[in-house]
């Protein structure tokens, strides 16, 4: 065992295979980015081939639809929604008319994507045969390499492979290396002649390399790898190639003065997307090697022959950017991963960023496709459905990183850190992806085409709107990932088995996915609408901006009464605090071998972050709620002292009701702030819980006293009361108690003496 291996600060290596690997995550990103880009490419090719038919159909529909909307009229400022509705009605009429053409377009694009998948599958299927033929690979037999076959059988057994691969020899490659390849049901491992020589001259080195190749099979990354390669090749040939030809054709023949600008906009985005696909592919290939090393080192030992072989390697030339383009990781990185696996648990900032970019590459085209497929009356839902499909995917990838990060931090006795950074990476990726999206170039062209100051104003309004939205997105994602990490920390202390860990991670990600579906889905949808709204709708936006109070009240009313808002706020505190259940049994978690890569008798103790203070939150909530009820009772008596004629008007009744809601919200916020200031761990979540308890008591108080003083209750009124009180309280409590908790943590932070 070498000294470097011993220099690791930790005695035991954690098992990175208890979580889904980065290979899986990057593979998903690669496929999503290729499919998202391909949708665009085939949409563009449709327009290139069938432009005249499409334009004719559109003209016919424009003529037969109601009169166009030319922006807000004088009275529109008073009722901006009327203008919006008018635009929407006209838009829907055109959409209905053009539906048959859109169906054909949908089929064309789907055929393009099917073609990509079919060609990629064929390449994936053919790669083994081509490789065997190109490299003159021959079967390994006893005559060709005496004694090797029996030894390989032993290694396959050691690697616990359910089915041994076919071993081949490459006599024309003298390196002491090998390759695992193949397709489903037919796996091969090639041993180069240089490696066969090692069998007789340096058996441990031979064993290390073969175990590395068998580890690829055990990690089940061969299909992903070769399908990734096939997808990359297919994307270049079947999508980028035709797109390039089409763009040149457009540039030469269109005669559109905006042609060069459009082609330039398309070209840099296509190049950026191609770079994204290439870098993601390279990242898949690099990380699989690291995981294979780690798996092999579990059989070979952390300082076995594999580690020694890596030690003899010099670092490849070139800087960081060159390293990103390579298909093999730096030997230093490989050695570090073998010595200490902690790095494999932490998702990097750039992985989160790439997830964000990929999300926004796919979102506009998915939305577009659903728009083509759905009837015009449901088209608006298409955008929402797209966002809802993609938001959990993005959160799933990055959220898993937060879970893994929390696990390794707690296992090492540290507090989880860096989850917020992942959120920022994801958010910046989403913002960057929106600009990179090929769809953006079309939108840009359409806006550019509308000359005049109204266009300028709309573009400026759209830009300002996007900046505000991006800031909101970044802040929300920063805290959301921290919330996921906090939830993970709370729950991880309860794990006892590998199965329970997987179930908890799944449960946590489903919860995060559902919650993100509500808010991130809505934000993505707004992002999407803002970037693709036609000019007329931007004018409506400007109108809405001219009547901000109306717009804000409408939005607040919608948000506060929405059951989704209620579910979101309850989910925020309920998931992490539910870990308290049964916690008495598991003060410290001891688990055995599954958590470690090497056989270990040492139990894994996850750092205890702090203590739950549910009773404190409950009592504070009850006290706040009852205090409100007392105040409301007094207010009720005061209200009844007012003359009947005054209080029986609708305006007075609404004011009194809203006054109760406002008071309830303020008292909830006060309760939440007190709890946030007192509870040191998960203070914000405890404060939300306290606000929830208080809000429930208050809502019951409002309804009960209303009934007691001669009022009536119906389900609609009851829901409105509950929703306004609880959602309003939570909405205000969250930022304020967050601020108080942050301040408290800052005051309490340990200072150097």
């Amino acid at each position, binding site marked *: 065992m070498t000294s470097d291996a011993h220099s690791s600060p930790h005695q035991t290596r954690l098992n990175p295979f208890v979580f889904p690997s980065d290979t899986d995550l990057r593979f998903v990103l690669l496929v999503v980015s290729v499919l998202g880009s391909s949708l665009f490419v085939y949409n563009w090719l449709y327009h290139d081939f069938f432009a005249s038919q499409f334009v004719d159909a559109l003209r016919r529909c424009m003529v037969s639809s109601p009169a166009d909307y030319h922006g807000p009229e004088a009275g529109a400022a008073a009722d901006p929604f009327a203008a919006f509705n008018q635009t929407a009605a006209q838009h829907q009429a055109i959409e209905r008319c053009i539906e048959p053409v859109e169906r054909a377009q949908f089929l064309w694009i789907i055929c393009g994507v099917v073609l990509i998948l079919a060609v990629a599958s064929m390449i994936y299927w053919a790669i083994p045969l081509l490789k065997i033929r190109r490299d003159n690979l021959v079967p390994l037999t006893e005559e060709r390499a005496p004694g090797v076959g029996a030894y390989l059988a032993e290694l396959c057994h050691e690697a616990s492979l359910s089915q041994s691969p076919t071993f081949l020899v490459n006599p*024309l490659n003298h390196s002491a290396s090998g390759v695992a390849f193949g397709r489903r049901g037919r796996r091969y491992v090639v041993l180069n002649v240089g490696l066969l020589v090692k069998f007789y001259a340096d058996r441990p080195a031979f064993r290390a390399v073969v175990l590395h190749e068998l580890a690829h099979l055990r990690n089940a990354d061969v299909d992903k790898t070769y399908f990734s390669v096939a997808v990359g090749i297919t994307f270049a040939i079947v999508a980028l190639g035709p797109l390039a030809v089409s763009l040149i054709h457009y540039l030469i023949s269109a005669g559109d003065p905006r042609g060069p600008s459009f082609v330039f906009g398309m070209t840099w985005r296509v190049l950026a997307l191609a770079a994204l696909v290439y870098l993601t592919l390279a990242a898949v290939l690099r990380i699989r090697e690291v995981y294979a090393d780690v798996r092999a080192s579990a059989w070979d030992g952390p300082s076995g022959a594999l580690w020694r*072989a890596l030690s003899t390697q010099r670092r490849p030339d070139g800087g960081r950017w060159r390293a990103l383009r390579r298909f093999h990781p730096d030997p230093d990185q490989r050695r570090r991963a073998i010595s200490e696996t902690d790095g494999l648990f932490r998702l990097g900032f750039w992985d989160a960023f790439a997830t964000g970019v990929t999300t926004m590459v796919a979102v506009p085209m998915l939305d577009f496709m659903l728009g083509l497929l759905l009837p015009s009356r449901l088209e608006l839902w298409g955008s929402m459905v797209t966002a809802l499909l993609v938001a959990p995917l993005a959160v799933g990838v990055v959220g898993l990183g937060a879970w893994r990060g929390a696990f390794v931090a707690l296992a090492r006795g540290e507090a989880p850190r860096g989850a917020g950074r992942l959120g920022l990476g994801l958010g910046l990726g989403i913002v960057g992806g929106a600009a990179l999206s090929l769809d953006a170039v079309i939108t840009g062209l359409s806006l550019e085409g509308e000359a005049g100051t109204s266009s300028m104003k709309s573009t400026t309004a759209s830009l300002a709107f996007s900046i505000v939205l991006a800031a909101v997105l970044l802040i929300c994602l920063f805290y959301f990932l921290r919330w996921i990490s906090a939830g993970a920390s709370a729950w991880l202390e309860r794990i006892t088995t590998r199965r329970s860990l997987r179930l908890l991670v799944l449960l946590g990600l489903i919860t995060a996915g559902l919650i993100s579906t509500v808010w991130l889905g809505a934000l993505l949808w707004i992002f999407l609408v803002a970037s693709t709204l036609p000019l007329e709708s931007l004018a409506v936006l400007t109108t809405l901006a001219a009547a901000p109070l109306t717009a804000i009240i409408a939005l607040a009313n919608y948000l506060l009464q929405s059951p989704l808002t209620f579910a979101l706020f309850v989910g925020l505190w309920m998931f992490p605090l539910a870990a308290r259940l049964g916690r008495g049994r598991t003060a410290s978690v001891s688990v055995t071998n599954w958590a470690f890569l090497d056989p270990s008798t040492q139990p894994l103790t996850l750092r205890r972050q702090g203590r739950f203070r549910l009773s404190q939150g409950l009592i504070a909530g009850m006290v706040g709620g009852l205090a409100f009820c007392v105040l409301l009772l007094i207010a009720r008596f005061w209200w009844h002292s007012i003359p009947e004629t005054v209080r029986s008007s609708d305006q007075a009744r609404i004011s009194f009701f809203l006054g109760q809601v406002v008071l309830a919200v303020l008292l909830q916020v006060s309760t939440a702030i007190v709890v946030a200031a007192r509870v040191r761990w998960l203070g914000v979540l405890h404060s939300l819980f306290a606000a929830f308890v208080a809000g429930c008591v208050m809502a019951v108080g409002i309804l009960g006293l209303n009934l007691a003083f001669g009022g009536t209750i119906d389900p609609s009124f009851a829901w409105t009361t509950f929703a306004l009180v609880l959602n309003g309280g939570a909405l205000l409590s969250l930022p304020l108690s967050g601020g108080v908790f942050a301040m408290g943590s800052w005051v309490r932070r340990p200072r150097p003496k």
Partner: protein
Amino acid sequence: MSDLVEYQLVAEVARDQVDQIAPQEAPIFPLLSEAYFQDPDKMLEAQGKDEMLGFGLEVGAVLLTPVVITVTKEVVEFVAGVVMTSVQTQSSGLINEFVKKMFTKFRREGEERGEKLPPPLTREQIRRVREIALEKARQLELAPNQAGLLADSLVGSLATTA
């Protein structure tokens, strides 16, 4: 000499040289010689490069077997030339046999059976064999010490006058 006979002879002679100077390659000699005779140039040009999806380490070893076979082939061709000038026959079968008998390993069998044998190589011819072997090994970028070892081993395998 027919190709097949030459291949067999070269392989048999080269095998002995590999045993001497690269014993770790001896067990897979059949595999290497089979690949060599299918495409000698490809085998000689083969590098220790790792593939895109391979292990990722340049732990390439310079295989000596292809070099040994190539050098041996040169020597056998020289010996065949010597035999053809010294033996007045047009029968290719007989020439093949005579070339074979120029190597000690096969000559001994002939002597035991009392067969008619060609005259062994002279000192001058042996020196020429050594030069040819060294020259070819140098062309193939074999390390000088290994080239010397190979040349000596080849010379040692030939029957000489003294």
